[in-house]
């Protein structure tokens, strides 16, 4: 994508799934119902288009890092907005806590992003491919894999979430990883 004759042109669209996965991972569990990750990602991609000229990087890795920083800021804004809104719409006590938790986690994330070492880029690129491949999986398989491998849910939690038996979940994970391997292979 980058060559000397032609300036690097960020292809931000292909990072949509990656950003979605990231947003989902960093928003606290309890807030997931309240905060629409795809909205935040959409916002982030629009920002990226608008600010393209400010992007100084020359590689996909740097682009991904740039997008991640913007996403982190947007998620932080969204959680803060949620904190302000809760006074009006919700009196759930647990929500306070959830927002607090999310906020501190996102702060850590932001801090990590701003000091992200460049050798991480390659690895993020591979994660981005994974996100892309995950997005092509049938919904239940993707759901099971994300819960298990990205969010570290136990088998019983996944069963509860997906309303399926343990062996059905195992089957989803199994078929999901198989399919994922094929998809990753195609992407590489």
């Amino acid at each position, binding site marked *: 994508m980058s060559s000397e004759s032609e300036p690097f042109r960020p292809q931000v669209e292909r990072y949509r799934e990656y950003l979605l996965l990231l947003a989902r991972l960093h928003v606290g569990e309890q807030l997931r119902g309240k905060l629409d990750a795809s909205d935040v990602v959409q916002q982030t991609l629009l920002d990226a288009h608008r600010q393209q000229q400010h992007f100084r990087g020359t590689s996909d890795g740097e682009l991904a890092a740039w997008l991640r920083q913007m996403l982190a800021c947007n998620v932080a804004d969204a959680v803060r907005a949620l904190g302000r809104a809760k006074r009006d719409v919700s009196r759930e006590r647990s929500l306070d806590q959830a927002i607090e938790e999310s906020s501190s986690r996102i702060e850590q994330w932001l801090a990590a992003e701003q000091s992200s070492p460049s050798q991480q880029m390659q690895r993020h690129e591979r994660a981005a491919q*994974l996100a892309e491949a995950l997005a092509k999986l049938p919904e239940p398989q993707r759901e099971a894999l994300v819960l*298990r491998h990205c969010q*570290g849910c136990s088998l019983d939690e996944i069963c509860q979430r997906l309303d399926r038996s*343990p062996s059905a979940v*195992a089957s989803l994970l*199994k078929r999901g990883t198989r399919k*994922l391997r094929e998809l990753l292979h195609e992407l590489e």
Partner: protein
Amino acid sequence: MSQSSAGDSADRERRLDEILVAYLRAEDAGVRPDKNEFIARHPDLAAELEEYFRDQAELNDRVEPIRPTGQSATEPAADFVGEPTIVPSPTVLMDVVDSDSSADPSMSEDDLLQAALPGTRLRYFGNYELLAEIARGGMGVVFKARQVKLNRIVAVKMILAGQLASSEEVRRFRSEAEAAAQLQHPNIVGIHEVGDHQGQQYFSMDFVEGTSLAALLREHPLSEKQAAESVRTIAAAIQYAHSKGVLHRDLKPSNVLIDANQQPKVTDFGLAKRIEGGSELTRSGQILGTPSYMPPEQAGANHGAIGPASDVYSLGAILYEAVAGRPPFRAETALETVMQVLKAEPVAPRLLNPKLSRDLETIILKCLQKAPSSRYRTAQELADDLQRFLNGEPILARPVSAAERAWRWCRRNPVVASLSAAVAMALITVTCVSLVAYALTKDALGKMTVAKSDAQEQRGKAVQLAADKAKLADQEKTA
């Protein structure tokens, strides 16, 4: 695809799902399950399991950089509940503690020796806490150990460095061990895990509290009934292994453990042989093991003929020693023993133990036949005949007749036999010729005697006639 194979593969997938449920639950419990163990326990699904574990690892690897801090998929945040006895953290593979020895890819004998000494550096090996050395042999060292994750006592056998020279040998050792690991039988010591830890090949198995048949026999021979019962039980276990396509190939009293309930348990399936290699006798002049229980087809390196009947032979040798107090063949050196195994008939066990019943002797000698086809064809047939013996029913085996024995002797000693045959033929020929000559002579003599007496008679007659004639002439003159 036919319906049945479609059904089969659906069935396999269902089984795979069940295994994965168990695996995922183990992960959830925070014990970091041993993938090799899962694979070893389900060898028929090994490929699928390996595939899943590989995919899973790849997935985790890719997720890692984007995972929020403090989360990890392989180690769920769940605390270690209910297992307060786990001392080392399962996230840390406990290793040979010294840095100099951990750099060494496989343990030298010195390391193993060190390990056996109390209070020395090697306390942990992979997931195992080594407790005590149980045995030491040509192929390695066996430790009593505690499997930390599952908090159970096992035996861990480590293969000495240098026993498995090439990667091909390692591969064969592993596939053999994996085949043995699928055996699940009350009279077979189960293998849990086959693996290598920093290049050190090892396998873990049930820890059997008790002694070995070899140690027991050193004390005293068994009673006829005890011996027959034990070997019947072992033969049934061997039959089970054969039905799974696994030969033992090194059955001997030291490979039969006797547990606290006096039940025999067979250990070291197919493994010792693999490690000791094709050459049974020498490795740089050293003698490894004993050929006393080895069938001739194995002692003669005629590996093509090794089959279930080879284990039947070894069972017979064990039974022989159990009742006779010594193995069927034992000479000063292993080489001489091998020669006996190949050439000699075993001493009839009843000569060594006159109280032994004839039927049990017959059973033993049938197992020890040189030709595999003359033995019990299967371990089951041996077990059945021993059961008949124990029930007091007539056994199926027949004692070998004198003529059969003579014929076999000739087969084994062709030079002596053919020379003897030639001498015998010469003797017979001479005898026949003499007899004929004698008869002819006697006949001639008889004829001569008859002729002589005829002649005498004729002469008598002639004299008489002459006398008569003279008398007649005298009368004529006087007249």
